[in-house]
Every structure is written in C-alpha cells, then in structure tokens.
C-alpha cells in the first residue's frame, strides 16, 4: 500500500543545505514507489527559479536537477501563489518542469501547479506523511 508523501520546501536554495537535502531525499525516496508530491512556499519558491548562477557562491548550481523529477515519476509540484507574488515572481520565472503521462500516450505535461495557501492547506491535510525542509 503506497503512502502519500509531501515534501515541503520553505527555504532559499543556497545558504543552507535544506533545499539540496530535500531534493536528494526526494530522488532517493522515488525508488520506493510512494505517492510523492512537493510543495514550495515562502523563500522555497526561489529554489525553482530559472537562470540561477552560483559561480560567485562557490557551490554547485543544482537547479537543473529539478528537471529530472519527471523522469523519477515525481510530477505533482505545488507552488504557493501568495509566496510567489509576494516576491514579485510569476510562473514564467520558474523552471519549466514537465513529465510524460504514461496514461495519455506519453504526452508531455506541466508538473507545476500554482495553488493558493488555502488549497495547499487542504493538500497537506490529505497526506499520510509531511516532511518539512
């Protein structure tokens, strides 16, 4: 019986290890065929922004790895609209994350869904496990 796992990402991508750790746990956990979704809110929305440049920080830019999530069958990625708007960002500022839908002749579909804070609360309620990073 698969469980519903939600990984909640609230922190900016660099400066702490949370974002990278969360991504690695998601990729490792994906092997166990659970029902996985990801939520990005607060400064966590910056994790998905396009055009990240980390040379000056001296750390690896791991943002391209989010594009592999579709290959790992992780295709429910919720971004909180309020957090995005409060930072002057829109969907166009985020990486285009897609997956191929096995049940729809492998059509390419968007993984990211913009949701309100209220909708995200409902999504959290529906989970068996919520992991916060």
């Amino acid at each position, binding site marked *: 019986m698969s469980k519903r796992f939600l990984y909640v990402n609230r922190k900016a991508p660099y400066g702490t290890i949370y974002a990278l750790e969360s991504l*690695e746990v998601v990729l490792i956990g994906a092997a166990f065929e659970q029902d996985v979704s990801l939520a990005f809110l607060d400064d966590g929305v910056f994790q998905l922004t396009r055009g990240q440049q980390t040379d000056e920080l001296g750390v690896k830019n791991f943002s391209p790895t989010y594009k*592999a999530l579709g290959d790992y069958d992780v295709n429910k990625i919720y971004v909180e609209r309020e957090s995005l708007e409060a930072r002057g960002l829109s969907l166009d500022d985020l990486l285009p994350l897609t997956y191929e839908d096995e049940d729809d002749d492998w059509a390419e579909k968007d993984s990211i869904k913009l949701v309100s804070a209220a909708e995200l609360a409902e999504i959290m309620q529906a989970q068996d496990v919520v992991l916060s990073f």
Partner: protein
Amino acid sequence: MALEVNGKSIAVDEEGYLENRDDWNTDIAKAIAQEEGLDMSDSHWEVVNFLREYYDEYQIAPAVRVLTKSIGKKLGKDKGNSKYLYELFPYGPAKQACKIAGLPKPTGCV
C-alpha cells in the same frame, strides 16, 4: 587514492570514483574499466556517453530505474532493459558505468 594513467596520477575516492570530474578523458575511462575487469566495446561507450550527457543536463547521475527508462527512450527498447545493461556492467549499470564515466556515485544507487 590515485589512479595512474599515462604517467599521470588521477585522484579517486576510496571506491574508485574520480575526485574531480574535469580530470576525465577516454584513457582514464579505459583505465577505470580495466580495474573493473571490463573491456570497453561500442555498446559500453554508448551507455557511458549517455550518462555524461545526462549529467551535463541534470547535474545528477540517474538511478538505475531512470537510466533504464531513459536509455530505452533514446537508444531503443532492446537496450532499455536491465538484462542488456547488466550484461554490459555486471556490478550494476548505474554504479559501474558512472564510475567509468567519471561521475559521482549515483544518488540512491543500487
């Protein structure tokens, strides 16, 4: 630890993975393969090159399940299966091929 290739010393970790991905070249790949007891054929190179391209694009070495699926999509169903990949890389396609490709050990590797 270090690997000697063409008179040069290449840094590797305790499991034989390259410390510095930029050190990689085909001679080093062959030397690592030899340590692994593998003779590199065109089929081996195809997988190794695929992994390097995957890493360039996504900055990770894919898990074996993802590797199998992606190889199938790119190189055809007859190659995108565990049997084919394990015949080429008996100690695990992701683990062994990644080492030869000069990539880090795959995240969540089997």
